[in-house]
């Protein structure tokens, strides 16, 4: 009886630690040795509590508790497995309309195509295609399980650029240092300290006009705080700052424009539609099946213990027949 409450406390801590992998997927702590050791110690404690309980040393109710603790042990094993054996968290960001092979999970990720409206509304999606399986479509805000992996989307600041020369001719946009060479969509993954604050930065090239463009993304709050000289209609909108260079890397102009507005800089006309586009987060999590089985066993064991305890309490209160 005396070990029931400590064992239940340990079980609840164990469940919290493992379920945390599902609630906050991708946190680096789940792949550290400290986390694994903590779970292993908890697992050892659970074994020491569960062993006498399953032997029924404290009655049938304790046997039910032992079964429940065995269930928690399954959850702990799943937690250790995902932390220790599961792959490290991966964040994959690619331009809209591209395909990324993911050989580790036997799939290919299809990043949905996006026009300026999709970027502005942040509605980009990612589909995971596996041979002989139906596609797994992950939309913003949702998550999907694939074995011991959780797949979800994280929004990245993004801009869809349009560029044309002085004659109004459309210009090719390339990203020689980006993950996708031929993309007018720039995903802001890097940050740089500007005027004491970290801002998203990126860049692209306009080979047809022999220009390279550095871009800084300022969100609406930055614009308000830093009093940028933007038109009144830009209030409450994010803006981009363009810094253009010629083929000899000489600066040829700096300009700033809010989302959806054109600006002429360095002999070219530029327009950015600002918003977000998702990156795919693949995080190792405890296999949902193992967690469900373990939790099921724990709840059943706990319920069984309570029922049996209640029954034995009633039996203890039944008065002995007279004359016995």
């Amino acid at each position, binding site marked *: 009886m005396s070990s029931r409450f400590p064992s239940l406390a340990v079980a609840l801590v164990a469940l919290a630690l493992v379920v945390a992998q599902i609630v906050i997927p991708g946190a680096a702590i789940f792949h550290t040795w400290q986390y694994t050791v903590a779970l292993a110690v908890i*697992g050892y404690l659970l*074994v020491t509590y*569960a*062993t006498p309980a*399953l*032997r029924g040393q404290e009655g049938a109710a304790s046997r039910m508790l*032992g079964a429940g603790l*065995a269930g928690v*042990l*399954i959850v702990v*094993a*799943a937690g*250790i*497995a*995902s932390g220790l*054996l*599961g792959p490290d968290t991966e964040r994959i960001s690619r*331009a*809209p*309309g*591209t*395909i990324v*092979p*993911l*050989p580790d*999970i*036997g*799939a*290919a990720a299809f990043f949905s*195509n996006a*026009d300026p409206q999709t970027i502005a509304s942040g509605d980009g999606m990612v589909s995971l*295609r*596996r*041979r*002989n*399986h139906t596609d797994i479509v992950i939309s913003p805000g949702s998550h999907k399980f*694939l*074995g*011991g*992996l959780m797949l979800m989307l994280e929004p990245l600041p993004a801009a869809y650029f349009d560029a*044309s020369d002085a004659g*109004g*001719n*459309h*210009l*090719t*946009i390339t990203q020689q240092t980006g993950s*996708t*060479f*031929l*993309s*007018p969509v720039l995903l802001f993954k890097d940050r740089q300290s500007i005027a004491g604050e970290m801002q998203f930065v990126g860049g692209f090239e306009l*080979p*047809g006009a022999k220009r390279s463009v550095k871009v800084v993304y300022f969100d609406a709050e930055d614009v308000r705080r830093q009093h940028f000289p933007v038109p009144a209609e830009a209030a409450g909108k994010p803006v981009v700052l363009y810094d253009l260079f010629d083929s000899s890397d000489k600066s040829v102009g700096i300009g700033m424009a809010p989302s959806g507005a054109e600006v002429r800089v360095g002999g070219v006309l530029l327009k950015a539609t600002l918003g977000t586009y998702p990156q795919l987060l693949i995080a190792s999590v405890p*296999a949902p*099946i*193992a967690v469900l089985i373990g939790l099921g066993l724990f709840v059943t064991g706990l319920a069984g213990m309570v029922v049996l305890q209640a029954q034995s309490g009633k039996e203890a209160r039944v008065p002995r027949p007279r004359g016995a």
Partner: protein
Amino acid sequence: MRVLLILAALVVVVLLALRFYQGGDVGAPPGAGPAMLAGAPAASFTVKRLNGDADSLADYRGKVVLVNLWATWCPPCREEIPALETLYRRYQSKGLIVLGIDQGESASVAGAFARKLGVTFPLLVDDAQQYGRAYAAQGLPTSILVDRSGHIVKGIDGQLTLAQMQELVAPALK
């Protein structure tokens, strides 16, 4: 002791099950760039021809199509176009289509350039650069050979000679 052994066995079984459960079958080819797309269905987007009519790769189903992604500012693309024109004229009667898809430029720019070089194969203008992204172009030019069923035979990064083009398309035309 027996209970401990059962519990230990349970843990091992769960660990092994997780390991097997994670390793699905491999459905994506390895590598990067256009080469990784061999065998995949060819992506198609409706864009405009030089004359403004809508057109797409899918409209050429049943033909062997050599898709060539190019731009007028790209020197190797400009060098490659005469060989593409020769290839088209030589194999058109056998069911080959050379489909030039300009990446990111205006029809007027691409059209003026094509007229200067006497290009007769179909030219599309993809100002949103959708084909370039879908075919994982790592530079220009990029060539993609698509078979009669609409599947990618091979994706090639960089300029090709006429001899290389002929070697590429000949098996698909048989």
